[in-house]
């Protein structure tokens, strides 16, 4: 027991060193110790600003006890699936977590506790159109990521859902645009007509 404890403690200390000495955390170094599930089914379309997602996360009990002793906070995020990352460099997946742009939207951040956790989130109004999944990161007391869990498989092919964005257009805006445009063009012709009239009347004088 003492031997286990010592081994675990030294492993933890070493892993802390590894992260603090390099400063950067790599996604590939994180263990997938959390089980994360979300209410949307594969291919379901959610409306931005209207629909809700229920997220559940818990520690995967197949891992040895004490795995989660370093976890201080959990941050659950909404992440782009590969289909929405194609030809969009500003959503690129990079192993260095400080440069990674896969997960740009925060769903919830909570202090870590071992029991089952759940959260209901209304899909934000300003989310762009795309295909998504949910991922949760566990952070230690230095706010460095140490573990994660996600709703999809490691290749990000299963269990993806879509979000339908608002267009941002309104009828009133469209009507205003058309009116002002018409005004610009008509005023130009109005001006020409006026100048012609002036020229004619000055000729007659």
């Amino acid at each position, binding site marked *: 027991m003492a031997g286990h404890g010592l081994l675990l403690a030294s492993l933890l200390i070493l892993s802390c060193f590894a992260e603090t000495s390099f400063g950067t955390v790599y996604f590939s170094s994180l263990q997938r110790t959390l089980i994360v599930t979300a209410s949307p089914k594969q291919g379901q379309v959610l409306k931005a*600003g209207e629909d809700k997602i229920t997220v559940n996360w818990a520690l995967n009990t197949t891992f040895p006890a004490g795995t989660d002793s370093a976890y201080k906070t959990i941050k659950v995020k909404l992440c782009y699936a590969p289909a929405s990352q194609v*030809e969009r460099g500003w959503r690129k997946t990079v192993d260095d977590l400080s440069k990674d742009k896969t997960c740009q939207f925060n769903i919830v951040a909570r202090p870590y506790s071992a029991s089952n956790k759940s959260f209901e989130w209304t899909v934000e109004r300003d989310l762009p159109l795309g295909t998504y999944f949910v991922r949760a990161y566990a952070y230690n007391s230095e706010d460095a990521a140490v573990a994660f869990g996600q709703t999809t498989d490691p290749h990000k092919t299963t269990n993806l859902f879509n979000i339908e964005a608002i267009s*941002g257009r309104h009828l009133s*805006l469209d009507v205003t*645009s058309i009116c*002002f445009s018409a005004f610009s*063009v008509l005023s130009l012709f109005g001006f020409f007509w006026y100048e012609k009239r002036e020229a004619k009347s000055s000729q007659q004088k």
Partner: protein
Amino acid sequence: MEVETTVKDSKSPNFALPVDSEHKASVFRLFSLAKPHMRAFHLSWVSFFSCFVSTFAAPPLLPIIRDDLNLTTTDIGNAGIASVSGAVFARIAMGTACDLFGPRLASASLILLTAPAVYFTSMANSATSFLLVRFFTGFSLATFVSTQFWMSSMFSAPVVGGANGLAGGWGNLGGGATQLIMPLVFSLIRDLGAAKFTAWRIAFFIPALFQTLSAFAVLLFGQDTPDGNFHNLKKSGEKPKDKFSRVLFLGVTNYRGWILALTYGYCFGVELTVDNIIAEYFFDRFNLKLHTAGMIAASFGLANIVSRPAGGIMSDAVSRRFGMRGRIWALWVVQTLGGVFCVILGRVGSLGASVAVMILFSFFVQAACGLTFGIVPFVSRRSLGVISGMTGGGGNVGAVLTQLIFFKGSRYSKETGITLMGIMIMCCTLPLTMIYFPQWGGMFCGPSSTNKVAEEDYYLSEWSSKEKEKGFHEASVKFAENSRSERGGKVDSVTSRVDETSSSPNDV
């Protein structure tokens, strides 16, 4: 018969500024609004500024727009290219329109006809519609030609470089100002409660309204020439109606126009390209906030407040001592240095160094634009508009080319694209060595010593003997006299050069 208009009277009506024989102002007073000269200056730069604000209103908001319209990198690149390609032909058309109808009507018409494209940007809902609105909005950049034409009509040779540089530079400022204005307007509207995807749409009404109002100002307060509007001058017979086909032919067959079109593509064209890519570059590479990236991108365009005018003034200053040859040399040196700094910009990796190099780069590239239009007014008198249009159009071609080659799709990272663009700048500036004016010389050769060409010979060769019989060439004669200052040195308009050009002094 009452002669009500003052134009008939060749003893000039009282102008607020001292004028030459063509009634062009020979001094430039920045803080005056006196008609017609300074008023024309302020109207032209403000209206041109508004067109620049509209054309580059989208780039600082791209991080929002790309999510709303679900754009890919290719879509964004294509829209950027579209925004500058419309003006290629619009500028040439504008040049001809100025020659035929006058800068006031030509520019105001274009501005009012392109304003709808800016209003319709708020209705864009796909990559295609976005590309179309940017394409048609970009046509308004042709007002550049009318500003240069207008300034060349209002200001005489010793100050025309500075006038052109200030009008062009302060108009170009719009490309920088918009990077500040649009994120600010967007934040304001969003803070008032609008969704992000609605706020950017509303924000576009600001540049659109500004554009409409500035066109009204030009129509109401502007005047084509010191003596009046083209319309009135044609009616009174002072300005003969010129033949479009002849004007166009003379313009396109003047090889100097083509060389300047090419080189302008690598100062102004590069400036347009950078306006399109720089905000996204800083936002993505250095992980900045939208607002911060916008401010840095803005400083590139804002340098125009001094850099382009400095180029024009430098051109005039160099010409006083070295004439036209000095103007060409100065342009070559400054533009090549712009290329050098562009190469360096692509290589530096830290934020601070990038910003510093970008500012240096902006200064040289924009000064080169000002220097170019210190030369353009002298290439042709009859086809001034066409030459201005060709050069201006060439600027846009350069923008299209550089974006197509270096910034479309994911072939080159933006940093590599910037470096390669710098190398292309240096190469495409070399043709300046081939420009030669028989009466003044070129970079490596003095004026023609065998033929003793005078300014009149050069400018009057644009008119046929029939046209000369009818007296159509009068304006060119005056211009030729006034352009003798391009010989440089402390030369009196009567004496001829006695330095390295002629081997034996002749009787004059």
